[in-house]
């Protein structure tokens, strides 16, 4: 089911200061996809999620889930959480400690007064789906973090909600378990064909889990796109910076000729294949991700985007070398295969593919 949000705003007041948690947010969340709200802490992503689910009351705007308007200041509509028919997984899981697994999962059905047999059947089916068969009588407090997370998921799914919402559900798991659970969650959600709204500040989570990512900053949505588009084709520096490590080189557009836009920068002329709509003379920033910087063997001097620099630092991180190269006055971070023979202090040639140089408008 589709979610439509129009001109939603919400302010917080603390010590005479007004903080806009949401500033006129317009957003369309497509049906049956995994949609992620990504942003640094305090950007308003959790507030937006809580407004959708009805735990937070916006100051103004409208929210529609499917055809039903659940909140509107103009029309004076506020449907409370319990009447919205959604499922949600909380950051703390919010597993009720005084109940066993069965009662936790059965709860949404019990609130709807479904017949006992029906409840038993659905709970069994859902627990099977999240691979917790036979856990019905286990007290909820006697579960591991990963199991609690699955109980929370089962509880959110059991009543077959129109939309399921996730508020940083993996942030309380340790790194290894987080990775596994992420994959599991992806496969669960893909099987279900359900609209999922997922809030996180973890870019890897956002990229690997979502069909669509919306990046938020100070109560606004900065950019929406597929993980691929957000990572490679963002035209905003905040997004490019937030979504991954990157080098930013300031420059000026010299010529725009198919297929390259030529940019004059502190390290020299850079050719970029990406379109940006920038006209000659315009000040821009070129974004180059460290994994796309290649170290060249031998004396390469001709070809596009080849620069010479000195390796300033080099750190072995296991699956790669990470380090910094000084080109002129500019320091570039790079990441290369661990088998590459490079030493600190060495003068080397480097190249970056014009296809992976994106132009950010200032």
């Amino acid at each position: 089911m589709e979610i439509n949000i129009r001109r939603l705003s919400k302010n917080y007041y603390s010590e005479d200061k007004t903080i806009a948690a949401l500033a006129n947010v317009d957003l369309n969340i497509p049906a049956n996809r995994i949609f992620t709200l990504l942003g640094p802490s305090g950007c308003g992503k959790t507030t937006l999620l809580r407004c959708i689910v009805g735990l937070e009351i916006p100051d103004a705007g409208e929210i529609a889930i499917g055809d039903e308007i659940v909140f509107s200041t103009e029309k004076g509509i506020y449907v409370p959480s319990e009447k919205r028919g959604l499922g949600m997984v909380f950051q703390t899981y919010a597993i009720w400690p005084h109940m066993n697994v069965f009662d936790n999962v059965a709860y949404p059905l019990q609130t709807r007064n479904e017949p006992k047999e029906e409840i038993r059947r659905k709970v069994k089916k859902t627990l099977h789906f999240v691979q917790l068969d036979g856990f019905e009588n286990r007290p909820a407090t006697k579960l591991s973090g990963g199991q609690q997370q699955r109980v929370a998921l089962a509880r959110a799914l059991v009543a077959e909600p129109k939309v399921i919402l996730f508020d940083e559900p993996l942030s309380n798991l340790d790194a290894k378990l987080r990775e596994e659970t992420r994959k599991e969650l992806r496969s669960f959600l893909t099987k279900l064909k359900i609209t999922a709204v997922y809030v996180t500040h973890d870019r890897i989570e956002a990229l690997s889990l979502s069909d669509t990512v919306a990046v938020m900053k100070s109560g606004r949505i900065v950019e929406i796109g597929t993980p691929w588009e957000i990572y490679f084709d963002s035209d905003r520096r905040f997004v490019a910076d937030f979504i991954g490590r990157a080098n930013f080189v300031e420059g000026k557009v010299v010529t725009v000729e198919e297929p390259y836009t030529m940019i004059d920068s502190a390290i020299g002329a850079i050719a970029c294949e990406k379109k940006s709509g920038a006209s000659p003379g315009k000040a821009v920033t070129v974004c180059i991700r460290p994994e796309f910087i290649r170290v060249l063997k031998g004396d390469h001097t001709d070809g596009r985007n080849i620069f010479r620099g000195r390796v300033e630092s080099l750190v072995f991180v296991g699956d790669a070398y990470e380090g910094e190269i000084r080109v002129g006055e500019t320091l570039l971070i790079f990441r290369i295969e661990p088998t590459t023979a490079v030493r600190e202090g060495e003068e080397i040639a480097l190249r970056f593919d014009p296809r992976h140089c994106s132009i950010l408008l200032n």
Partner: protein
Amino acid sequence: MQKTRTALTPGLIIIVGFLTVCPVFMLILGSFSEGLGAFGSFTLSKYVKAYTDPAFADILANTVIFTIGSAAVATVLALFLAYLNTRTNIPFKFLFRIISLIPMMVPHILFAVSWVLLLNPSNGMINLFLRQVFGLGGAALSIYTLKGMILVEGLLDLPIAYLVIAPAMSAFDVSLEESSKVCGASNLHTLFRVTLPILRPAILAAMTLVIVRSLASFAVPSVIGMPGRIYVLATHIYRIVATGYATDYGLAAAVGMSALAASITLIFLYRHLTREGEKYVTISSRGYRPTAIDLKGARFPLFGIVALLSFVLIVLPVAVLFYTSLVPYSMVPSAKAFAMMSWKHWIAVLKDPISLLSLRNSLYLGVGGATLGMILSFFVAYVIVKIRSKASGFLESLSFLSFSFPGIVVGIGFMWFFVQTPLYATIWALLIGYIATYLPYGIRPLTSAFVQIHSNLEESSRVCGGGPLYTMRRIVIPLLIPGIVSGWILMATMFVRELSLSVVLSRPGTEVLAVQILRFAEDGLWGRLSALGILMIFISTTLVIIASRIGAKLTKVDK
């Protein structure tokens, strides 16, 4: 939800405001009035009479010595116990937990009575013993002195002081002490130069709290002070309204004003001090447990002192009462005494209609009052913890204000109120007064229980389709059961033994246990008093056991 929430806070402010402000307001009005019958006719004469009374200076001096003395006794003992428990390798540490819990077990009036039975100058058991064995003429020791009052009150307030000091002591950063020792100071030197100065806020807070409690104390001053003609503010007020031919509630209100003012000032001081104390404590590092100081040879002698204290606080009063309830008159335990034992006093009490009435009234007030009190406390705690607004902060201050009120003063204030209503001389008057005075005892455990319920637990119930009431019933209340049970137990046991408020509000027909026990004490009917006292302890203990059983059953997870 929003609507019910917004209606809840002002509604509670009105109820709690009535309960806490009404007695104060009526006390002030009453102190300027001619008398109960002439309410509202303004006069200053009561103040003039109250504070120009030549005896008043003595009463004030007694009060100051009594409260500060008790605070000193309680705090020194508490420091001693807390230090031994948290910092040394003293054996049988479970005893310390018991010592910190006894105020629930033995009602203050019975504790004071048991000391009278042991040490009163005419036939106290210890005095009889000294007379028989050493042939001492007259009374060797008398409890009916200011010193006696201080000792008994100090022992009674020891648990309160301990509960303030022990957490501060265990949260204390031991590296501060260790650095002193590295500098070459001895254990004792370190104790006095480092440990005690750092604990100063906690020590002062404990003292302040005990002063407030002993100022409000009525059991010890009435049972021990009055026979020795030693009056403090509480008993002075009592004398004005309860004895003699001309009771004067205006005069009592005028005297009560100074007790109330002192209490409120002290409780603000206490809150200030505990805030200061937290500042000190939060500096400390957490989790690191130092090696306990080895007491070596002093280990068992020091334990002996602790064991003696526990004996004096817990076993002795009950043993003395039980013994006294069985012997015909006061005598030293001997073969002869055991031969003369009978159930005579018990039978007399169980045939005495007023004693039976007081048993019934106290039981009703304990069960009904604690239940109503917890319902009110539940909503107040909910608003204080879950709705963080200016109004809820106001409600919090309001509900904790009554903590400082001396019972007898609140009683006088309520008296002025109830006389204008049909509630006068009914059990409802006592019920309202009890809840007003002891509301903090119900709110305290509930707020700490509420704080532990993460808001997500409620929110997830809402998202799952549970409305506000459904969420309350299935999530909030079950999670609060431990807090509700301990609050209920506290309130119920307080109500069963309540004395200082009841001596003012209790009228013929609404007698309660503690008042009846006080009557027996005044008449010197020690045998009946002891029998009724044991029944009182039995009722309290039964209520505690039943409530904890129900609580344990309700919190069991799996069916």
